[in-house]
Every structure is written in C-alpha cells, then in structure tokens.
C-alpha cells in the first residue's frame, strides 16, 4: 500500500521537477546551491536526477553553463538562456492551468462525496 503510494507520488512529481529547476535559474546557480534552494522550499529532489537533468537542459539549450574558477573550488554555474526563459514562462502557464483544472475537478468530487 505505502509502496504503491510512494511510487505514485514519485510519478506525479516527476514532471514538475523540470519546472522547479527552471524556476530557480533566473540567477546563475551551481549544483549544490540549487539543491539548497529547492530544499529551502521543501521541494525534495533526488540528486542523482538533478545533475543529469541540468546537463540535459543545457543540451536542449534552455540553460547555459560556465565554469567559475575564481574561487578556491571550481564551480559550474547554470543560468536560463533567452530561449529557456520563453519556455519556462509557457511551462509555468501550462502548470497553472493544469492545477486550476485539477483543483476544480477535485473540488467537484469532494462535493459529490459529501452529498
């Protein structure tokens, strides 16, 4: 039961991960700072998914990366590209619409159940 629930939850959240990551990349972030940002907003993220995801987003030209070697430790920074901003805005609208629709749907179901 709980195993099924957790696998369903993971599935439900999988699609939102890209959106969550894109939303934090208007300012340049490196891997671990991104993890901390997401964790601060209670977005649980599997690190073995996050780092490959960043690379994929770069390949899809949604983000651009650069190495910063000025500090003691070299860090790779990621930031949204112009194309990335455009896609992010559209994806955000898409998400908002989906949640509205789903909210109405679930609200209706609740009323049905109470009747």
């Amino acid at each position, binding site marked *: 039961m709980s195993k099924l629930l957790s696998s369903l939850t993971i599935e439900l959240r999988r699609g939102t991960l890209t959106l969550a990551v894109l939303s934090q990349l208007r300012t340049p972030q*490196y*891997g*671990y*700072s991104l993890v901390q940002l997401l964790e601060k907003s209670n977005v649980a993220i*599997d*690190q*073995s*998914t996050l*780092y*490959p*995801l960043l*690379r994929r987003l770069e390949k899809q030209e949604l983000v651009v990366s650069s*190495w910063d070697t000025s500090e003691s*430790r*070299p*860090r*790779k920074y990621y930031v949204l590209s112009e194309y990335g901003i455009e896609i992010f805005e559209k994806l955000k609208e898409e998400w908002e619409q989906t949640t509205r629709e789903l909210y109405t749907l679930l609200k209706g179901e609740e009323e049905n159940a109470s009747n």
Partner: protein
Amino acid sequence: MHLIDVYIQEVTRRLPEKNRQDIALELRSTIEDMLPENYTEVEVKEALGKMGSPVSLASGYLDRPMHLIGPRYFDVYVTLLKMIVPIAATIAFIILIAENMFSYNGEEALINIILTIVGKGIWEILSISIHTFFWITLVFAIIERTDTSKEKLPLTTSLKEWTPDDLNNIPYILKGKEISKSSIFGSLLGIAIFTAIYFNAVQLIGVYEKIQGKLQFVTPTFNQEVLHAYWLIVLIAIGVEVALVCYKFVIGQWTRKVAIMNTLRHVVSSTVFILIFSNTNLINPDFISYLERLFNTSIEIKSSIILGVIFLWIVSVVIDVIQGFRKANISK
C-alpha cells in the same frame, strides 16, 4: 578523499570519453560543496549516499537506453520472433529429414533412421531457434540504439505508427475459423516425410527380419519401377499440396476460397493416389510370396482390397472437404 575518487570513477567509466572530464570536475565540486571543511569518512559516505548509486547517476547522464529493446520496438520484435523462429525451425527439420532420407543406403534399419532424425532434429531445432532468436534480437538492439527520433509511440509491423486504417488490413477471425500455425507446420512436415519416403520406398518400407541378431531389410513391399513410373504426377501433387499450405498460411483462416482450394488439392492428390494404387503390379511379388509363406495360405491381391483402400481414402478426403466448408461457413 579516496572514496570520492572511486565514486567519480565509478560514474565516469560508464560515460563516453568526451564527457568524462567535465562531469568528473562538476561532481567533485558538488560533492565537496556538500561536505564541511575538515570532513570525516562517515560524512563522505553520507554525502555519497545522497548522490545515489553511481549506476543510476551515470544512466541519467547517458542518452543511451538502459534496456535492450524498448516499448517502441518491442511489439514488432515479438511478432517477428513468433513468426520467424517456428518457420526457421520447421525448415531446418525438413531439410534434416530430406538429407537423411536421400543419403540413405539401405543398410540401416528404418527404426535407427527415425531415432537419428528425432535426436538430431531436437538438437537442430534448438540450435536454429537460438540462432534466429539471437540475430533478430541483435538487429533490434542495434535499431533501438541507432533510432535518433525521439518518438516513443510503438510501431506496427510495417514499421510505421498506428492509424485506424491499419485495421482494414487485419482480417477479423471468428472462433473456429482460424488455421493454426501448428497445423501449417504439421502439413509441411507431413509432405516432407511423404516425399522422402516415396523416393526411398524400396529401401524403407518392407519386411524386416532379425538375422544374426541384427534387424535387416529383406523384401520391399512395393515394386520400385512401378512406383517410380509415376514420379512426375507425384511431384505435381506435392507441388499442389505445398502451394495450398502456403495459401492457408497467408490467409490464416477458413474462407470459401480456402475451402474450394482445399477441395481442388484433394482432387489432385486423390487422382494420383488412385492411379498408383489401382495398378495391380504395384506390390512386389516377392513381398506377396513372403506373406504367403508366413501365413501358409495363398494371397491374391484382389481388386476388392484395392477398392477398399481407395474407398477409405475417399471417405477421409470427403470428411476433410466437408470440414473445410463447415469452418468457412461459420459466421458468428
């Protein structure tokens, strides 16, 4: 420090050469970000635990699939396997029978030949099945890896995506009308065995006697010359049989047309059978005198016996023809 090195190595050795350095550098800086200034081994382990298994991390970086054949090709793959493996196995078995029969020199007993064929046959069928399975799988695994389109939809056997029009090409098969694959392969096998026996009847069918502890062939049942005089029409009948089997395989179910074709092939093969069997010289005189000695009576090949055999043959043919039409007429 050491553990981190090993972890990074475990990830990067699974990645293409050109990405390794960059990813290694990024991973190292990320892992060190997670650790305090003077970290202990316990803390390293904790951090690496959060990073997760190197295998899944590496597979995240790879575009290559982590499966041999994915959902896009799996259905086509299985369909082809089911079609090709039995065909290949049957053909291999038929070839084996033919080889053994035609290279038969008349010295061995029939039972030994059959045992050899069964033994070799099982081996041959197994090895051919494994071979075809391997090659088909290999081809699909390569296609899976070279397919650059990002489409995920499964493909149909025509290697295109499904449209409702595809349904027009698929016959709707009612229960009881289908022609099973096993009956097709059975018929082919039967034809092969018959062909092999016909051309070797003189060495195969007849009286076997135990002489000096060995089973030996004494007298053939049939008269070689008479039997072989009919070779041309026998070949024609075999050709017709094979053609019908192929036709049934393609259509896959009993239709009126299949039933009519089935009747036609019975007419051809029955004509040939009756022609051969009504020849009174067909049975070897030596064989008859052998039987006479055995049972101490005189036996004459009476026309009534021949008529009886022919009658039985015709009855079985009529039953099969009627069955064909009955199946063809099933409509609900």
